[in-house]
């Protein structure tokens, strides 16, 4: 966590003790659906530096970030190229009719991670599941960032009534039990990948709205916005050309953590049987399906659970690293 920016000698912001309810409120906890996890950006301040005992942390967290990056790349590549791997058996049970079920993992066999109760290949399931998780996580975050970002931008920049209306919208979304919203959306529009993505995207709208609002508010008060206005720039131009570029980085670094949140949310939904149904493999429905045989075949739950854990951990770690790199200069989250 040692990140000192020597070019900013005075890192203590005079207003940093001022209670800003939006600060914490914009953590994903605000939106963690299905009691999903909420991860919090660490707006490391320039001089947030290790204690008297040597900054050992940077190296350690650097290693962590590298591992996280490696794992994420692995998962992304897997999800991208799974179609070209001989793993179709993992999602089409009619191809797996001849495959014995609940094969134990054996790295040297055709089914390195074994097969599940349906004879479906677990490795393949994990990769197809990765695709679902990534699409849901990244897609949902895109939806949330676009919608919530637009709301937050307008609210934070304009303030006044606009702000109030947006805060009513976000508060209503937050006050509404997220799971009900999810189930309802998923039931109204079938549990397909785009719909789940959309539903989870809506879940994170308030989080983004708050984050962007807080940032927009702080940047809207900056002198350079006044300067742009003095040049005759219109409101839209200021919002898009002056304010937005400054918000992109914190939003971006925050998004990693929200991806993690959404991946867990999707897994939880899957676990409850409310997301993309079997036989299309997702990590959550793999865990759910394996749970009945947990005692006998622990790997049915264990393998997808570990992959889920590592992926979520990686995204959180990347988010942390990104936040450390990009957020300090931005408004406090």
């Amino acid at each position, binding site marked *: 966590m040692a990140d000192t920016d020597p070019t900013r000698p005075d890192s203590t912001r005079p207003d940093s003790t001022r209670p800003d309810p939006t600060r914490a409120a914009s953590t994903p906890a605000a939106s963690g659906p299905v009691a999903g996890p909420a991860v919090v950006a660490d707006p490391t301040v320039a001089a947030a530096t290790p204690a008297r005992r040597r900054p050992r942390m940077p190296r350690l967290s650097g290693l962590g970030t590298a591992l996280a990056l490696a794992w994420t790349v692995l998962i992304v590549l897997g999800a991208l190229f799974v179609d070209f791997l001989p793993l179709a058996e993992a999602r089409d049970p009619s191809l*797996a009719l001849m495959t014995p079920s609940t094969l134990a993992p054996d790295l040297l066999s055709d089914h390195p991670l074994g097969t599940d*109760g349906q*004879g479906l290949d677990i490795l393949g399931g994990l990769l197809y599941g990765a695709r679902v998780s990534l699409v849901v996580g990244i897609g949902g975050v895109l939806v949330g960032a676009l919608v919530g970002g637009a709301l937050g931008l307008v609210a934070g920049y304009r303030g006044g009534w606009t702000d109030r209306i947006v805060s009513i919208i976000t508060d209503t979304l937050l006050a509404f039990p997220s799971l009900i919203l999810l189930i309802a959306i998923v*039931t109204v529009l079938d549990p397909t990948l785009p719909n789940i993505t959309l539903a989870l995207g809506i879940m994170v709208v308030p989080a983004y709205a708050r984050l962007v609002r807080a940032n927009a508010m702080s940047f809207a008060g900056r002198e350079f916005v006044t300067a742009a206005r003095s040049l005759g720039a219109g409101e839209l131009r200021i919002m898009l050309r002056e304010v937005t570029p400054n918000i992109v980085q914190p939003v971006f670094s925050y998004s990693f953590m929200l991806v993690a949140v959404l991946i867990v949310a999707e897994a939880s939904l899957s676990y409850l*049987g409310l997301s993309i149904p*079997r*036989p299309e493999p997702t990590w959550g429905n793999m865990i759910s399906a394996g*749970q009945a*045989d947990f005692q006998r075949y622990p790997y049915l739950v264990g393998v997808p659970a570990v992959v889920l854990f590592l992926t979520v951990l990686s995204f959180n770690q990347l988010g942390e690293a990104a936040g450390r790199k990009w957020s300090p200069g931005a408004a406090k989250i």
Partner: protein
Amino acid sequence: GGGDDSTAAAGGEGLAPDQSERCTEDRAGGTITVGEFSMLPSFAPGQGQYGVRGGAQSAAVYDRLMVWNPEAEEFEPKLAESLESNDDNTVWTLTLRDGVTFSNGDPLTAEDVAFTVGLHKDPATRSVAMTEAMEITEARVVDPLTVEFTLADPWAGFPITLAGTVGEVIPRDAYEAADPQEWASNPIGAGAFTVADFTPDQETVLEPNPDYYGGPVCPTLKFIRIPGSQGTYDAFQTGEVQVGFLRGAKFVNMAQDDEVRGFEEIISSGSVINMNSGKAGYDGVLTDVRARQAVAAALDRDLWNQRLYNGEGQATSALVADSSRLYDGQEGPAYDVEAARALVEEVKADTPDWDGTLRMLIGDGPENIEAGVVAKALLDAAGFTVVIDNAPVSQVTARQFTGDFEIVIGGLATSDADPAAAFASGMLPTGATNITGIDDPELTAAINDLKAAADLDAQKEALTRLQEVFNEVQPFTVMANAEQYVTVSDTVGGLTPTLSSTVLYDGAFVTE
């Protein structure tokens, strides 16, 4: 599996609890906690259904006119003194036990029995036994202790009606005087227990009824909801419940492997795949019998068994389990994927606008979904393209009413006591659970013959005939027998099993 046992209810490997002892004065006290899949929704008439859905609770409070004794394989009178039929089993005369009183002190009378039948026939009551009750065209009060039931058709298995929900007598005067809402949680019955506390969908606490005619009654009963066999079995093992209900071969075997005492029940046609053959205006491909036959042939029961029950279930395509007393070598359609494929091609050729798609409706819940996945795999392998459609259970139910499905996984609640009732309900055009919309005269005739069959041999013969017709018509296809197991803790005695894994607690006691 207990497939080889001759008595279905006796449980495998001699694990059936001893039923010879019952509650005595010195065994009074104690609490038995029972885990239920879903709770008795309310004590309103006709809500209790099987062991799964609160049957034991309502039976404990109302008692029943008759009971099925799985060991003796016969119906025995309980609140009744006797039940006699005429020669063609169309008129049945019930004599009540004298001196039975309800928990409010009123005596049990024939009026009450007739009133109860009327209640069940009234759709507004929403009785689960409405179809059965409709079989009774008239319930005539002969004298205060005698009722005469006239049936629409000859039915040798009629006692099953009185051994089920319809046999739970509602005291007319008290019921008419009470507020239905109040009754739902605080009923008056002739059973061994009275309701001490009722939290819908969570907990029901029953206390011994000191005036129970068959007394004494020992324990307090506490029914709690634990959805799913896994949770129930976990709770049973940690001692949180003393009686638990398990469903599915996997858990039944698990319990038996652990040498857990209990009552096993094997349900013929307990696991089926229903095919919409015209319900509520459906006119899709499954109205073509060849398509249904293709489905039946495409399904490899052994694989199904392997995938869903680790090969430990009782896979069969026959209507009757081979462990049943009624089994007489009946056979369902054989697995033949080539034949299935050929049929699909044939139908495709004849139905140009059908591309092989089948919409499969599945209720939420991991077990249903896994079953759906296997079915999809097998059907896809035969040339169908199955599209899985997940929905919450209420939606599945509703869509079955409205015919908005093509195939749906389900099961019949047949009982060895009288399989005709369940078959009639599932396959007669008027049947309550006829969700496939099948209306086939030959099938109807075969079922009516089965109902009328007066003795075991006749029943076996009728069943064989039914199986033949069934194999042609294929309104649904049987995948396996269902297995249920009521685990009973060693600390509990005096339980008696009856129809559909319902346990009677009037003799129950707690040891130690």
